[in-house]
């Protein structure tokens, strides 16, 4: 079947790029699904599929679209398009990789090649990103490409997933590696420098330096001995690279060289910052089977074994170890204070106070550590992605992540770790987030938070499952398509997900109807649902929606039963059907909202009831008075007959007398 020009244009992403679903590109952006794409028939692009639960990076997509460097694959467009099965997918269009990935041809790179064809181009690319306040967070060997040997490498796509979510744990700094994959946050450019340093080690050796070592062991080694030692270990690096990589793999991000400095490897090598070694206790402390020698290791142990750590924090075991073992009186006092604060907060019987104590203690022990809540580590700016991911794949984690918002954990975390964002600002943000969660009128606070925090998260309603609805404007066309495809069945017009989505991408004019929907999810208030969609249609000036209108008419048909008059119901049903044909929801809502019509119906009902009572009374009275009336009628009949007789009598008498 030939497609219309309008449909063909709609199938193009960004109005320009066509996806060729017959040409998958399996290694172009692993592990994501990728297809070849073209612009005006000219190939050379790829379409990277965005997966539900792994939202694309909205801010980065906007900020990096016109990147000037040739050493990176920037996103040139993004948007939904229809896939062969009829479902809609969301794709990020990037230039196609110039060649195979470095992982495909993994070899030991000479030092000169590393600096000229990897370090320098990457430094330029990262510099460009830094200038736009964006990070890449996907620097790994399978995401760097090279068109030919001895040519600069090109950094692949990092825009179709949450930052760093597919990064190997060992290529991330410890404070990022411990996080949930989707909750690593944007981080900072220094984190890209770290990954680049790890990559350079791998390329210099021609193999993964921690091959076969469990991630957790690598992480513990990083915490105990530092990242450089944990990654490089006993391997031998070219002497010139050692200083460079040591700087790039510094545990403190402030100590890593900037991209600008990396562009000049000689200068970067010369820059040496002596990091103060962590205080090491004479004897380790054991927390939940893990031995900690330093404060950072202790913080990690608290994160891994919160149940074992909580009593130790409360009974002073950790306080004493910090004072006597590590000799860090300041940290010990702070931990002691946090424990006392916890005692003052013993309100929550569900262990929330204990969880808050762990969070505060970790922030005090290791200010570089991420936010930890009930054993889950995230960076606050990764909360949105982590929450969305958990809502899809790990509901039990979603509950804990949502609790981060309700309990204002980021505020407590920022206050204790010091530095970073201003605590007052964080508190305000916390309040706002809490409001977004607890203020949800549809009872789906976690989803609302997810939709609100990440504008790239699509609506997860079953009614829009085949579409990819990320904007408020997309929801009605998606519902119209669903209505055209399938009968409504018994599903509501606006389910909880749609209401939550609209609420999150909200418009104050819709708040009234959302409020009415708040308690309506169990007993659907169809009129409010219709009104909400009607206002949405009016606000967004969407074209006619005949199929959705028919759906709506079908849904609100039972509401006509609220009218008592049968003829009125019939008349309204005919009118509703006519309005549905027109595809405008507002007149349908107005018709059902018509108060004079409702009042008229009520008055009519009252009048009919009164008249019925009168008639019933008259009928009952009729049978009672039948005999009396019959007797009266008989008497009247006889009187008439008597009258006639009397007249005859008078006439006869007259004749007799005068005749």
């Amino acid at each position, binding site marked *: 079947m030939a497609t219309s020009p309008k449909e063909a244009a709609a199938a193009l992403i960004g109005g320009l790029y066509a996806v060729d679903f017959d040409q998958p590109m399996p290694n172009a952006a692993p592990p994501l699904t990728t297809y070849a794409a073209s612009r005006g028939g000219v190939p050379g692009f790829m379409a990277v599929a965005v997966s539900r639960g792994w939202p694309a990076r909205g801010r980065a997509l906007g900020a990096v679209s016109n990147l000037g460097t040739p050493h990176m694959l920037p996103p040139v467009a993004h948007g939904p398009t229809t896939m062969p099965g009829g479902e809609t997918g969301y794709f990020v269009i990037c230039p196609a990789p110039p060649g195979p990935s470095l992982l495909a041809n993994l070899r030991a790179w000479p030092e000169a090649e590393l600096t000229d064809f990897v370090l320098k181009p990457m430094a330029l690319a990262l510099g460009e990103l830094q200038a736009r306040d964006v990070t890449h967070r996907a620097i790994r060997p399978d995401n760097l490409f090279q068109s030919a040997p001895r040519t600069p490498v090109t950094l692949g796509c990092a825009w179709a997933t949450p930052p760093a979510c597919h990064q190997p744990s060992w290529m991330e700094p410890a404070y990022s590696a411990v996080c949930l994959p989707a909750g690593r946050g944007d981080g900072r450019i220094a984190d890209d420098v770290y990954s680049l340093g790890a990559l350079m080690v791998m390329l210099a050796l021609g193999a993964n330096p921690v091959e076969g070592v469990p991630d957790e062991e690598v992480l513990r080694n990083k915490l105990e001995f530092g990242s450089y030692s944990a990654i490089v270990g006993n391997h031998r690096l070219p002497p010139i690279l050692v200083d460079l990589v040591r700087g790039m793999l510094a545990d403190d991000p402030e100590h890593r060289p900037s991209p600008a400095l990396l562009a000049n490897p000689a200068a970067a090598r010369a820059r040496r910052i002596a990091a103060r070694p962590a205080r090491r206790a004479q004897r380790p402390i054991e927390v939940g089977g893990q031995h900690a020698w330093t404060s950072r290791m202790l913080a990690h142990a608290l994160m891994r074994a919160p149940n074992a750590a909580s009593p130790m924090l409360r009974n002073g075991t950790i306080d004493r170890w910090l004072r006597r073992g590590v000799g860090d009186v300041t940290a010990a006092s702070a931990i002691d204070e946090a424990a006392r604060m916890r005692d003052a907060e013993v309100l929550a019987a569900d262990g929330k106070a204990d969880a808050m104590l762990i969070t505060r203690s970790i922030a005090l022990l290791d200010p570089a550590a991420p936010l930890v809540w009930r054993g889950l580590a995230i960076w606050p700016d990764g909360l949105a992605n982590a929450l969305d991911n958990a809502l899809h794949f790990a509901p039990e984690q979603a509950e804990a992540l949502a609790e981060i918002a309700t309990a204002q954990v980021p505020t407590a975390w920022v206050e204790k770790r010091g530095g970073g964002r201003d605590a007052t600002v964080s508190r305000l943000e916390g309040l706002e987030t809490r409001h977004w969660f607890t203020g949800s009128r549809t009872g789906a606070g976690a989803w609302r938070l997810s939709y609100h925090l990440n504008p790239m998260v699509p609506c997860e309603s079953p009614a829009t499952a085949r579409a990819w609805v990320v904007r408020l404007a997309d929801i009605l066309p998606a519902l119209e398509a669903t209505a055209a495809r399938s009968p409504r069945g018994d599903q509501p017009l606006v389910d909880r997900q749609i209401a939550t989505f609209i609420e999150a991408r909200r418009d104050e004019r819709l708040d009234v109807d959302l409020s009415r929907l708040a308690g309506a999810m169990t007993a659907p208030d169809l009129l409010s649902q219709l009104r909400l969609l009607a206002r949405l249609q009016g606000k967004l000036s969407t074209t006619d929606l005949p199929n959705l209108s028919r759906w709506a008419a079908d849904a609100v048909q039972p509401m006509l039963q609220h009218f008592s008059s049968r003829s009125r119901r019939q008349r309204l049903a005919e009118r509703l059907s006519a309005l549905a044909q027109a595809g405008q929801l507002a007149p349908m809502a107005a018709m059902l909202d018509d108060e004079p019509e409702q009042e008229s119906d009520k008055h009519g009902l009252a009048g009919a009831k009164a008249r019925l009572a009168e008639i019933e009374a008259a009928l009952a009275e009729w049978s009672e008075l039948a005999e009396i009336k019959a007797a009266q009628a*008989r008497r009247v009949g006889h009187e*008439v*007959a008597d009258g006639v*007789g009397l007249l005859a*009598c008078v006439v*006869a008498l007259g004749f007799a007398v005068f005749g």
Partner: protein
Amino acid sequence: MAKASASATPAVPRRSWFWLQGVICGVAVAVVPGTALMIGVLMAPAFATYAMEQGKTRPLARGMMLRGAACTFMPLRVLWEHGGSLDASLDLLSDPGRPLLAWTACGAGWLAGQLADILTRLALDARSARALRQLTQERDKLIVEWTDEQPPK
């Protein structure tokens, strides 16, 4: 039983005027025997009906008497022109046309009374049926329009 009877209000005995009617008839027979005979013969069906009809108002007898009377005035005048004697009365009554006409008039009176009863009953029934039909129709329409029930059959 005795107690109930004792507590009941004693009925007022109804006064009978039958003796007065007997006296008047006796006086009439004694004083004007010809006229009495004439009236008695011509009005005989009416008087018989009066005697047999139950009820206070005796509508049939009333109608027969009025019509019988209408046919009695002329023979009475003729009787009185001939002296009003018993012989004259017998002479006039020997003509069968006179009693036949009077009795026919009485019969017409009886028929009129019966017809009046039947006709008024018919008229009443027709009017009641129409009104009932109108009321029932209105009730059914209201039930159909304003309730989800079916109207009673």
